[in-house]
């Protein structure tokens, strides 16, 4: 058994971001008196494995929960409460209690709602005592019949965004649409691999899929659900519905569906619009679990949901939605057409592969600027800086072009006082590096190799956006709005993003940071009976553009590498 498997079985989450391939060198442990990589070492006998804290996935995870969009209004609520006084039996001879109730509650044709016999047990007594009867109906099923004088209990549902890196659970009262609690944390699947591709690879091994399914459901979502219930003082109350939004791979892994097809041409899914199922089947104490439908392997329910949440499903002036990440999704609505593309930007904007890059943990630098004293940084929670977030890298590149210390290809100007030469010997799976870098905070720097990776990432996003615009025959300035979704957008400075050529050039007031649109769409689907169908219809309308197969993509990408 590999040492990394031993750790996992013991509930210890080692940082296995490269998927256990021995590349990232984060899983170092002490075994048999030596430092070894847990993912490359087999334990052939009993012994003691010592794990330094630096080899673990960080426990603390800052999720900016205030960044979730407001709970949407719903025209066709799935959950309804009605209060009705049921006329006495003798006023309508021959009509049973239930029928008299329906006639009183629903003027005209009674909707198709069903009521289980055990729920009816309380009705006769309420009718006889002429009490106001409160019906709670969810998806056409009567959940409860009560005396309206009794305080009502919330009908619980959760909207869940299963991101590759961050998972957020939002507890809602389906009867009122009110948010009761919100909690988020790092997707524990990161211990297996940071990228979607590494998880597809792992999920294609005999025990890998089961492990990934449990990491998502039991190890990530369940603790968040319990945290939400605790916060709302509703521990033990039944959770009726869950709607999951996420990219197609996350959805497959959560449902325990083999993801192998998603990893290679022709990128085939097992199912893009799964039917609702029981929570028990996925290891969660929830009556029914549903998923926001996807449009393809690389246009998942999170992105389709995003389209829906910002209203791009309706006909209107040209608008674009960009979700920046390892695979940046770009969608363009022109008239009633929707074009969609996925640009493989690489993990640079999430800090992957960069000398001081990292995700949104305490100590992440979110903003950066240059003044007469040097670099000034702002961090999450105001603690000492330990690494840099995507938005701050964008700030750095913009400052570089504005102040003239970076060339169009991101080279540091010779003589720039805040740059220094550096040497890093080979190690950690990386070759030896020399060159110049800027130290922006103690122990935190940006070097020219980092800049090269950032330019490649931003080039992919810009090229993708420009190609969609070209195919639609419109210019960036014709865009009515550009919506930036996802965690990356949280601290992003739109002016800087345009300045460095990450976002297409357009009036800044039309760039809108829209937050977690996947969560917004999942919330809609939880509350609104039409939402899932409408999102599913969207899937059929998206015209997927395969960027790699566009003849001008390479040229466009190379042009987009430089900064204006």
């Amino acid at each position, binding site marked *: 058994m590999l040492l990394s498997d031993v750790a996992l079985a013991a509930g210890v989450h080692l940082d296995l971001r490269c*998927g256990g*391939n*021995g*590349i990232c060198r984060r899983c170092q442990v002490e075994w048999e008196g030596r430092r070894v990589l847990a993912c490359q070492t087999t334990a052939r006998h009993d012994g003691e494995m010592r794990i330094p804290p630096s080899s673990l996935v960080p426990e603390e995870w800052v999720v900016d929960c205030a960044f979730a969009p407001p709970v949407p209004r719903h025209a066709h609520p799935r959950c309804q409460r009605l209060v009705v006084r049921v006329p006495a039996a003798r006023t309508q001879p021959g009509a049973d209690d239930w029928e008299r109730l329906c006639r009183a509650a629903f003027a005209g044709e009674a909707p198709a709602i069903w009521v289980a016999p055990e729920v009816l047990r309380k009705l006769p007594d309420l009718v006889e005592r002429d009490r106001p009867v409160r019906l709670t109906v969810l998806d056409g099923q009567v959940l409860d019949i009560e005396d309206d004088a009794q305080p009502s209990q919330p009908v619980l549902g959760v909207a869940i965004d299963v991101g590759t890196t961050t998972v957020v659970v939002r507890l809602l009262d389906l009867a009122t649409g009110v948010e009761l609690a919100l909690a988020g944390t790092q997707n524990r699947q990161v211990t297996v691999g940071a990228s979607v*591709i*590494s998880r*597809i*690879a792992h999920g*294609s091994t005999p025990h890998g899929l089961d492990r990934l399914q449990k990491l998502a459901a039991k190890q990530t979502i369940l603790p968040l659900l319990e945290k939400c219930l605790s916060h709302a003082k509703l521990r033990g109350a039944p959770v009726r519905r869950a709607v999951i939004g996420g990219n197609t791979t996350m959805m497959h892994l959560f449902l325990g569906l083999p993801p*192998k097809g998603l*990893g*290679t*041409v022709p990128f085939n899914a097992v199912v893009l619009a799964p039917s609702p199922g029981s929570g028990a089947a996925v290891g969660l104490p929830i009556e029914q679990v549903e998923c926001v439908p996807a449009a393809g392997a690389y246009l998942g329910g999170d992105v389709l949901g995003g389209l829906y949440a910002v209203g791009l499903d309706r006909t209107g002036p040209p608008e674009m939605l960009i979700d920046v990440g390892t695979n940046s999704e770009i969608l363009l609505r022109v008239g009633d057409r929707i074009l969609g593309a996925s640009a*493989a930007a690489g993990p640079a904007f999430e800090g992957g592969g960069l000398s001081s890059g990292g995700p949104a943990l305490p100590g992440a630098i979110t903003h950066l600027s240059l003044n007469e004293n040097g670099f000034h940084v702002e961090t999450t929670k105001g603690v000492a800086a330990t690494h840099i977030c995507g938005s701050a890298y964008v700030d750095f590149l913009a400052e570089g072009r504005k102040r003239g210390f970076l060339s169009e*290809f*991101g080279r540091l100007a010779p003589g720039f006082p805040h740059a220094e030469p550096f040497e890093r010997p080979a190690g950690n799976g990386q*070759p030896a*590096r*020399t*060159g110049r870098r800027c130290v922006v905070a103690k122990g935190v720097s940006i070097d*020219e*190799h980092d*800049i*090269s990776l950032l*330019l*490649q990432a931003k*080039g992919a996003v810009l090229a993708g956006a420009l190609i969609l615009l070209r195919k639609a025959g419109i210019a960036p300035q014709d865009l009515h709005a550009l919506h930036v979704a996802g965690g990356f957008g949280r601290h992003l400075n739109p002016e800087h993003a345009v300045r460095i050529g990450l976002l297409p050039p357009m009036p800044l007031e039309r760039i809108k940071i829209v937050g977690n649109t996947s969560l917004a769409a999942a919330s809609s689907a939880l509350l609104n009976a039409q939402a899932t169908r409408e999102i599913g219809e969207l899937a059929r309308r998206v015209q997927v553009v*395969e960027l*790699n*197969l566009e003849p001008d993509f*390479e*040229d466009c*990408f*190379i042009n987009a*590498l*430089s900064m204006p």
Partner: protein
Amino acid sequence: MADMKAVVEAVRNGNRTLVLKLVDEALKEGVSAKDILNNGLIAGIRLVGDLFSKNEIFVPEMLIAARAMNAALEKLQPLLVAAGVKPKGVVVAGTVKGDLHDIGKNLVCIMVRGAGYKVVDCGVDCSAEKFIDEAKKNEAQAVLCSALLTTTMPYMQTIVTEVKKSGLPLKVIIGGAPVTQAYADKIGANGYGADANEAVLVTEKLLAR
């Protein structure tokens, strides 16, 4: 030659328009296509490769230089063929079956061409048969294959096996972000390049005869 120095500089700077202009002028002045190739384009790409391996330039600059050089090479191609200029060797290149990523592979093609080889670009999603068929057709000496996904990497083992079975004297050289020297050794590939520049060096080493 002063002219060729300007070509080298223009290639290094990735100035496609200027490279094409200088090549045109050189041809008009009677400089042979072979001279322009060796002393202008190949010398330019050599310089770019050296600077890259010394961390003095990075991928973005290498990409624009390669693009500029490739544009000039395409222009010279018919003239080189007509003059009977023979390449140093022939290789086939492509991205493995199941994989669509090609920007890195395209860069390798240009850099290896820049080193004086004929490169037959098989495109993306290439099966072992496709590599072997193209290699046979073009009398190639090496197969350069890349994979950008850990899910498509395993196919490289298939390529190595099929090449061995074919009995052809073909070297298999692999590369791509998730690929490592250790992996190359494990599957019995003849060579591995960590980047486009190394791909050139490994190709030269293995095909030197």
